[in-house]
C-alpha cells in the first residue's frame, strides 16, 4: 500500500506478501492449537452451559432444516410455558456451523455436527486475527497489523471465550466485530459505497450472531458524531455513514429476534440521531454554499432551534406512548453498576456480570495492558479520521470492560491493536538503519525459542522493511541520538517481554480457560495420577435413559441447558433467563419446606428434582453455595413467603452446621443436598456428615423425605436426582390432634322439635379425616 516507485514496489510486495501470508498463517495455527488444550486433555466435547443450548439448537437445525428451526417452539424448556426458540435466538452461530456441516456433507465428508461446533471457535479465531490485521493496517501500518494479529491469536482475554468446545456466540462475533470495523474504517477512508455496503453486510452477520452488535451501532455513530464535532465532516463520511446506517438498519431488522428493535428501543436511538444530525450538517453545508452569509446565519439559528425542539418532543412523546422502549435492565447495569444488585438479582447472580478486578486485566492481557496506552498516545498524537475511531473504541471498551468481566472480550481486540501500534512504533525507532546486522544477531540469540517467537521476529523484519519506505516522508531524525548498544538492549528487552507474553498466554489458557466444566479432573496428591470426575454426564445420561421421555425436571436454572442438551428432558427454567417470575417460583420451591414446595412442584408437574451437591468432593460451585441467590430471587417475587434474613443466623452468618438458621436447615434444597449424608463418613477419623465444601458438620442429619425419594445419586454425590412422588404414593404425615382443623359446617338440621324422631344423647361424633394408606 505504500506509494513507492513501481519497480521496487513489485519486488518488495512479493516478499512482504509472502511474509504477511506466512505470519498470518502461523498466527492462525498458533491460535488454533493453543485452543485445543481441552480437546487433548479431555475430548471433543461442548463446554459449560450456554454452548449446550447452541449445540442443541444447531443439531435441531441440521436435523430439521432452517425453516423448521425458525418456527421451532421448544416445549421442552420453560415448562409449562415453552420457548419460541426461532424468534429468541441469534441464529448466526447456528447458521455458520450448519452451513459448514451442509457444505462438508455435500462433499461427502461425514463430520459430526458436534465436532464442527467444537472446533468452530478456534477456526474463527484465525479469521479474527486476519481481520484484526486488516483493521490495524488501515489504522497504522501493516507491521502493527501483524503484531496485532499475533497478539489476538493467543491473548487469553479472547481465548477465554473461544477455546475448542466453547461453542458460543462470542466465538464468531469477535470476528464479525473486527471485520465490520475494518470495513467501516475502510469506507470512511475511501468514502466508497462498496466498502460501506460491505460494512453493512458484515454488521448484518454480527447482528445475527451476538447481542453485542449494539456496541457497533453505538460506536460507529459516536465516531461520526465526534468527527462532526471535531470539524472533520467530509462527503466521504456522509456517503459511508448514510449507506451503512440505512443498509445496516434494514439488514438488522431481518433477524427475527431483533425485529423492530432498531427503530423502537433507546439503545439504537443514538444511531438514528447521528444520522439525522449528519443529514442536517450536510444540508447546512449545502445551503452554506448556496445562501449568503446573513441568510444562512438566520436560517441556522431558527432551524437548529426548531429541529432541536421537535426531536426532543418527539423522543419524549414516543417514549411516553411506549413506541420507543426505554433502556433494558442489562443496559442500565452498564451505566450504574449497583443497579442490577438492587433491581435484577438474576443478572447480578451471574459471576461474569460482576465488575472486573484489576487483577483480571493483567491476567487476561498481560504486557498488552501496559503497551496499550502507548498505542492510544501514538494515535492521538498523529490523529486522523480513522484513529479517532480507534481511540473512541479504546475508551468505550475500557469503560465497559471495567463494568463487567464479560465485556473484557470487547476490550481485548482494541488492546491488541493498540499494543501492536505501540510495539511497531517502538521498533520503528530502535530497528533503524544498521539494523540488518543487529537483526541477525538477535535472531541467533533467540533461535531456540518456539514458533510464536519466530513469527514475532519475522514481523519485526517485515516491519522494518515496510518502514524504511515510510520514513522517506518523515518526521524527525531522532535516531541519531541512540547508540547501537542501547538499541540492541532495547530490542532484546522487547523480545524478552514478548516471549514472556507468549509463555503467560499459554499458561493462562492451559490452566484457567481449558476446563470443559462438565468433566472435572483432579490430581491425586498421593500417586500423582489424574482422576476424572464425570458425575454430570453420569447423571444426565441416567436421566436420558431411565426416565420417561416427557419427564419434567426441576433444577436451578444454571443446569437447564445441560439437562436439555445432554439428558434431552423437559426443564422448568434454563439459562435463557427470560422469565424472572418462573425462576423465582423454582427458587421458592427450593427454599421452602418440603411440604410447601411439594405444592409448588405438583402445580408445576415436576417429576424429578436435580440438585448439585459438592460436599463429598469439595466442589464449591454447588447449589448450597448458590442458594442465597435462589432465596434472593424468590424473595423478589414472593416477599411474603420468603425472607432472606430467615436463612441467616442471628449474627448474620450463612452456615449449614447445627447453628444454622432453622429455615435453612429445613428447606428443600438443604434436605435434597444432605439426604442421608449425615450417615456418610468420608474418612475413618472424621465425624459423619462432614461437608468438605463448607468445612462443617451438617446441622440437620437425621431426617427422612416424605414427598420425594432418591432416584439417583452419582458416584461422587455431585448430582443428586430425586423423584417427586405422586399424591397417592406417600403416607401423609399425621397431624397431632391439637393441630387438626375442621372446616366449619354450614349444615343446619331441618328437623325441628315436631319432626324429631329419635335422639341419642352423647352420640359419638365421627370426625371425617383422611385415611392413611398402609
Amino acid at each position: 500500500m505504500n506509494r513507492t516507485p513501481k519497480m521496487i514496489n513489485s519486488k518488495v510486495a512479493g516478499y512482504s506478501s509472502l511474509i504477511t501470508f506466512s505470519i498470518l498463517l502461523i498466527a492462525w495455527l498458533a491460535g488454533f492449537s493453543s485452543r485445543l488444550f481441552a480437546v487433548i486433555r479431555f475430548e471433543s466435547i461442548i463446554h459449560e452451559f450456554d454452548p449446550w443450548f447452541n449445540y442443541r439448537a444447531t443439531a435441531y437445525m441440521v436435523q430439521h432444516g432452517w425453516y423448521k428451526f425458525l418456527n421451532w417452539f421448544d416445549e421442552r424448556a420453560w415448562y409449562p410455558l415453552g420457548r419460541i426458540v426461532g424468534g429468541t435466538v441469534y441464529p448466526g452461530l447456528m447458521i455458520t456451523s450448519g452451513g459448514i456441516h451442509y457444505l462438508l456433507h455435500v462433499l461427502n465428508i461425514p463430520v459430526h455436527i458436534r465436532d464442527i461446533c467444537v472446533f468452530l471457535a478456534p477456526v474463527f479465531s484465525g479469521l479474527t486475527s486476519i481481520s484484526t490485521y486488516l483493521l490495524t493496517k488501515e489504522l497504522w501500518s501493516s507491521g502493527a497489523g501483524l503484531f496485532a494479529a499475533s497478539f489476538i491469536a493467543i491473548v487469553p482475554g479472547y481465548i477465554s471465550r473461544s477455546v475448542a468446545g466453547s461453542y458460543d456466540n462470542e466465538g464468531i462475533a469477535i470476528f464479525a466485530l473486527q471485520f465490520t470495523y475494518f470495513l467501516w474504517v475502510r469506507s470512511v477512508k475511501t468514502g466508497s459505497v462498496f466498502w460501506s455496503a460491505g460494512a453493512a453486510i458484515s454488521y448484518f452477520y454480527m447482528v445475527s450472531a451476538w447481542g453485542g452488535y449494539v456496541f457497533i451501532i453505538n460506536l460507529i455513530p459516536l465516531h461520526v458524531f465526534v468527527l462532526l464535532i471535531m470539524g472533520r465532516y467530509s462527503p466521504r463520511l456522509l456517503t459511508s455513514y448514510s449507506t451503512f446506517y440505512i443498509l445496516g438498519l434494514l439488514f438488522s431488522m431481518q433477524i427475527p429476534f431483533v425485529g423492530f428493535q432498531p427503530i423502537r428501543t433507546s439503545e439504537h436511538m443514538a444511531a438514528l440521531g447521528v444520522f439525522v444530525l449528519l443529514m442536517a450538517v450536510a444540508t447546512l453545508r449545502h445551503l452554506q454554499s448556496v445562501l449568503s452569509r446573513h441568510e444562512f446565519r438566520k436560517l441556522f439559528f431558527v432551524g437548529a432551534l426548531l429541529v432541536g425542539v421537535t426531536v426532543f418532543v418527539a423522543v419524549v412523546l414516543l417514549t411516553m406512548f411506549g413506541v420507543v422502549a426505554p433502556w433494558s435492565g442489562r443496559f442500565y447495569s452498564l451505566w450504574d453498576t449497583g443497579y442490577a444488585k438492587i433491581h435484577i438479582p438474576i443478572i447480578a447472580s451471574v459471576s461474569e456480570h460482576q465488575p472486573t478486578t484489576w487483577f483480571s486485566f493483567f491476567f487476561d492481557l498481560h504486557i498488552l495492558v501496559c503497551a496499550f496506552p502507548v498505542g492510544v498516545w501514538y494515535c492521538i498524537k498523529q490523529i486522523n479520521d480513522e484513529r479517532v475511531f480507534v481511540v473512541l473504541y479504546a475508551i468505550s471498551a475500557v469503560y465497559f470492560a471495567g463494568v463487567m468481566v464479560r465485556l473484557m472480550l470487547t476490550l481485548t481486540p482494541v488492546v491488541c491493536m493498540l499494543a501492536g501500534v505501540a510495539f511497531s512504533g517502538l521498533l520503528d525507532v530502535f530497528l533503524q538503519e544498521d539494523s540488518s546486522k543487529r537483526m541477525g544477531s538477535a535472531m541467533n540469540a533467540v533461535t531456540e525459542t518456539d514458533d510464536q517467537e519466530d513469527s514475532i521476529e519475522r514481523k519485526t523484519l517485515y516491519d522494518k522493511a515496510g518502514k524504511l519506505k515510510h520514513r522517506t516522508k518523515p518526521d524527525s531524525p531522532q535516531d541519531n541520538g541512540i547508540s547501537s548498544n542501547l538499541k540492541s538492549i532495547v530490542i532484546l528487552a522487547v523480545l524478552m517481554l514478548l516471549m514472556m507474553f507468549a509463555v503467560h498466554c499459554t499458561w493462562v489458557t492451559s490452566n484457567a480457560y481449558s476446563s470443559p466444566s462438565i468433566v472435572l479432573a483432579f490430581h491425586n496428591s498421593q500417586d500423582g495420577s489424574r482422576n476424572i470426575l464425570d458425575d454430570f454426564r453420569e447423571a444426565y445420561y441416567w436421566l436420558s435413559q431411565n426416565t420417561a421421555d416427557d419427564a419434567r425436571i426441576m433444577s436451578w436454572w444454571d443446569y437447564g441447558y445441560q439437562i436439555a442438551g445432554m439428558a434431552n428432558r423437559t426443564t422448568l427454567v434454563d439459562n435463557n433467563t427470560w422469565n424472572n417470575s418462573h425462576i423465582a417460583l423454582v427458587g421458592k420451591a427450593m427454599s421452602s419446606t418440603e411440604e410447601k414446595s411439594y405444592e409448588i412442584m405438583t402445580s408445576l408437574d415436576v417429576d424429578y428434582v436435580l440438585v448439585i451437591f459438592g460436599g463429598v468432593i469439595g466442589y464449591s460451585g454447588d447449589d448450597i453455595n448458590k442458594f442465597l441467590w435462589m432465596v434472593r430471587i424468590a424473595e423478589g417475587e414472593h416477599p411474603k413467603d420468603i425472607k432472606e434474613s430467615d436463612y441467616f443466623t442471628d449474627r448474620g452468618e450463612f452456615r449449614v452446621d447445627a447453628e444454622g438458621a432453622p429455615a435453612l436447615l429445613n428447606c428443600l434444597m438443604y434436605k435434597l443436598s444432605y439426604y442421608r449424608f449425615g450417615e456418610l463418613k468420608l474418612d475413618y477419623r472424621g465425624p459423619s456428615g462432614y461437608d468438605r465444601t463448607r468445612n462443617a458438620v451438617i446441622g440437620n442429619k437425621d431426617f427422612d423425605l416424605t414427598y420425594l425419594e432418591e432416584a439417583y445419586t452419582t458416584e461422587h454425590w455431585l448430582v443428586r436426582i430425586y423423584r417427586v412422588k405422586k399424591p397417592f404414593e406417600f403416607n401423609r404425615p399425621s397431624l397431632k390432634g391439637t393441630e387438626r382443623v375442621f372446616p366449619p359446617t354450614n349444615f343446619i338440621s331441618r328437623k325441628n322439635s315436631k319432626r324429631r324422631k329419635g335422639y341419642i344423647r352423647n352420640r359419638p361424633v365421627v370426625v371425617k379425616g383422611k385415611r392413611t394408606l398402609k
Partner: protein
Amino acid sequence: MFKILYIYFLILQCFLCASKTNAEIINTNVERLLDLSSQLVKTTIKITAEETTGKPITEYVFLVADPNLAFISLKDDTEKNILLRKNKEDLNGDQTFTFTFKKASPTQTFVIETVSSKNIRPHPVEIEQNDKQLVKYNGSLYFYSKYKTRTQKTNVKLSSSNILFHTQQKPFSVGANRIILGPYEDIEALSQQELVVHYENQTPFLTVNTLERTIELSHWGNIAVKEEIQLTHAGAKLKGSFSRYDFQKEGRSDHSAVKSYKTYLPASASGVYYRDTNGNISTSNMNLVRDFIELELRPRFPLFGGWKTKYTLGYNVPSYEYMYNDGNKYQLKMHLIDHIYDNMVIDEAVIKIILPEGSTQIKFSTPYQISRRPNELVHTYLDTIGRPVVTFSKSNLVESHIADFTLNYSFEKVSLLQEPLLVSAFIYVIFLFTIVFLRLDFSITSHSHKE
C-alpha cells in the same frame, strides 16, 4: 424336497394313529442337563434311540415347544457340531427339527444342545435395592418328544443353593446348586408336565435390545468395527428409591445390579473407543490377555433392574487377518456378531458390512439363517458413486451364534488410486486458480488503490 414332505406326512400319520402301529422309534434312555445358572437355559440332551422292529433309524424328528429357542445344534458320533435348520412346518405349534443320520443303525446315540433365552423370569418382578434377586424357571419336567421315552433323568444346575421351590415329582434329590429329577420310566410321546424351579439367581440379567454392528472395510489395510448397543437390565426391577449411600456401603459383588462387565475383542484390535451421545465414557479398562483383548466396560451408572443404557463401542483391526484375495476376487471372513458379555442375549441384531467403493459381484453366506435386507449405498470420505452396504438382521442371538460369515466380492485394484488422485487434482486446481487469479487484473476500473 417332495420326498421329505411325503415322509414327513407319513410320520405325521403314524403319529396320529400311534397306538395302533408298533414299528416305532423309542427313546431308550434320555439324560438331560438343564443349566439354569445364568439368565440362559442351556440344555444338553443325550438321547439313545432305538427302533423297536430292528430296522435301521435314518431319520429323527426333534420337537421344541419353547418359542424362545435361540440356538440348537447336534453332536453326532462324529463329534462334530451340526447346526440344525428348522423345518418349515410346525407340528401343533411346536418347532420341529428333522435330521438324517449318516450311518443307519437300529440304535443311535447323539447329543442335542439347545440354548434359549428369557425362560427364566424374575419372581417377584420388583425388588428393593438390597433384596436378592429370585427367579422362576418354567419348563417341562419330561423330555418332550415325538416318541415314547423309556427312561429319562434330568439334572438341573442352579446358580445357588437357595432354592425356594421346585416341582416335587418323585423320585428326585437335591444337592448343592443341583436338583436331580428322575429317573422317570415309560413316558408317553408328547406328554407334558410343568417343571417349576424358584431359586435365587444373582447373575446379571442383561439383555441387548438392539445391536447395530457396522463393519467398514478398507483396502488400505484396515477394518473398522462399530457396535451400537442398547442394553437393559432385564432382571427384577428396582422398587422404590435408589440409595447411593447403601450402594457404597455394601460394595457387595454378588449384587444383582451390574456395575461392569467384560467384552472380549480380537487381539489385534486397536484404537478402541467406548462412548455415547454425551461423549467418551471415561470408565473402562483394557487388558491384553494372550489371544484376545479383555475390555472391562463400566456403564456410566450401575444398572439396576429395569435400567437401560446405550453406548457405542468401536475398534479397528488390520484387514490381513480377515481378508483373503485371489487377483480381483476378495473374501472377507469375520464374526457375524462378537462377544459383548458372558451369557449374552441379543434381541435384535442388525449387521452392516460396508464394502469399498466399486465392489461388485457380492456373494454372502452365513452359518445360520438370517434375514437379508436390501443393499444400500453410503457415501463417506471422498466417495463419488458410494459404497455398497450388505445389511441383514437376526433376532434372538446368544453366544453360540458367534461364528464367521463369508463374503465374496470382486474389486478392481486400480480404483484404489481414485481417492488420492481426486485429492491431488483438487489441490492442483486450487493452486492453479490462485496463480491465475493473482497474476491477472480483474479490476474493471483503471485507477489504482489509494490509501
